[in-house]
């Protein structure tokens, strides 16, 4: 490994951290292909670096978002419980459930979500809806100061049961297929709970660290976490996440949703192709 390699991976990681912090994704969907295709890193080391980058993005971004009130700790913990239980079930189901069928189902669900996200592109702050009894009971609500709109925005979660089901399913998928579920977390909060898009991505940032921590031990035990590769990636991602957090507070919800749409389309396409056995 040369100094040039270290500096280039650092630069790529800064970009991944910025995007990850804004969109509430760990950055694995970007980092793994970048490291393997452009830097010739072996796939298992790239995946190890990716899981560490998820935790670094989450720690860097969540700290800022929790302080500013953009990330909702109660909604995050409430939904993380569903994801972690789902991930445990998913891990137990490896080899039992036909993975291709699941990939097709989730690919189709993502394609549908992409269509719905497209239809909601122009909506900045969701209209206030009737309070769901579970949202009231578990205080799934909050207020944040929107710098782009120059006003305080209050929100309260709707369709709580559907979002729990979606998060549980996302957990099963990540436990079974070993893929990150940041996009599903954002979707559950944006689509089902009808939270402002920025609250959804910021809260997802808090949650992805928790779910990644649940599986990081597996990667470490397998020897997939290479200190010399992981360090520039983690430092870069953390720096990028810091920039991304500051950017998100200034962006409009509509812009964040527009940036999220291509990620959804990419995920839906790759999952359907994997399900069909093309990838």
């Amino acid at each position, binding site marked *: 490994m040369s100094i040039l390699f270290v500096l280039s991976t650092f630069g790529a990681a800064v970009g991944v951290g910025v995007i990850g912090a804004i969109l509430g994704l760990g950055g694995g969907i970007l980092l793994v292909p970048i490291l393997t295709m452009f830097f010739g890193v072996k796939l298992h080391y790239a995946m190890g670096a990716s899981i560490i980058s998820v935790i670094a993005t989450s720690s860097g971004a969540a700290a*800022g978002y929790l*302080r500013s009130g953009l990330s909702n700790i109660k909604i995050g913990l409430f939904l993380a419980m569903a994801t972690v239980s789902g991930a445990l079930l998913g*891990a137990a189901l490896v080899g039992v459930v036909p993975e291709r069928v699941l990939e097709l189902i989730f690919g189709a669900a993502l394609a549908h979500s992409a269509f719905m996200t497209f239809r909601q592109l122009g909506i900045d702050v969701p209209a206030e809806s009737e309070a769901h009894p579970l949202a009231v009971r578990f205080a799934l609500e909050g207020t944040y100061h929107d710098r782009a709109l120059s006003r305080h925005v209050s929100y309260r979660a709707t369709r709580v049961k559907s979002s729990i089901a979606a998060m549980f399913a996302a957990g099963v998928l990540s436990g079974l297929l070993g893929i990150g579920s940041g996009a599903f977390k954002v979707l559950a909060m944006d689509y089902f709970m009808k939270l402002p898009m920025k609250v959804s991505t910021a809260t997802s940032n808090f949650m992805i660290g928790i779910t990644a921590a*649940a*599986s990081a*031990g597996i990667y470490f*035990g397998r020897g997939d976490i*290479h*200190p010399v590769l992981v*360090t520039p990636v983690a430092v870069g991602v953390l720096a990028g996440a810091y920039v991304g957090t500051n950017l998100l507070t200034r962006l409009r919800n509509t812009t964040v949703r527009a940036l999220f749409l291509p990620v959804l389309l990419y995920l839906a396409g790759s999952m359907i192709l994997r399900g069909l056995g093309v990838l």
Partner: protein
Amino acid sequence: MSAAVLTARVLFWGGVVSIALMTVGVLGFALHGGLAPDAAVFTSVSQVVRAVSQWPVDPLGVAGLGILLLMITPALGVVTAFVAFLAAGDFRYAGISGLLLIGLLISLVFAAGG
């Protein structure tokens, strides 16, 4: 201080300290023998502990320590939320944080067995 602010502090300092340890470790390693591609990769906590408890300290062990700290930082955040909610008398969310911690512990047991 609210659970959110306390958790934010733990996540922030967990991230900063682990990144500092990783950077110092890898820089120390590079100064000693360059960035050899076949550098040691740790697969257990005891290997990392051995690497940092010897003299002179193995610089990569210091980086390994930073990686381990980063890996447990989110769990430390949940522990902080649990304690903060408990102290504030919010037993519902103390319970949710507690259940989440149990889930994380079960995953770790799975990881150790797998």
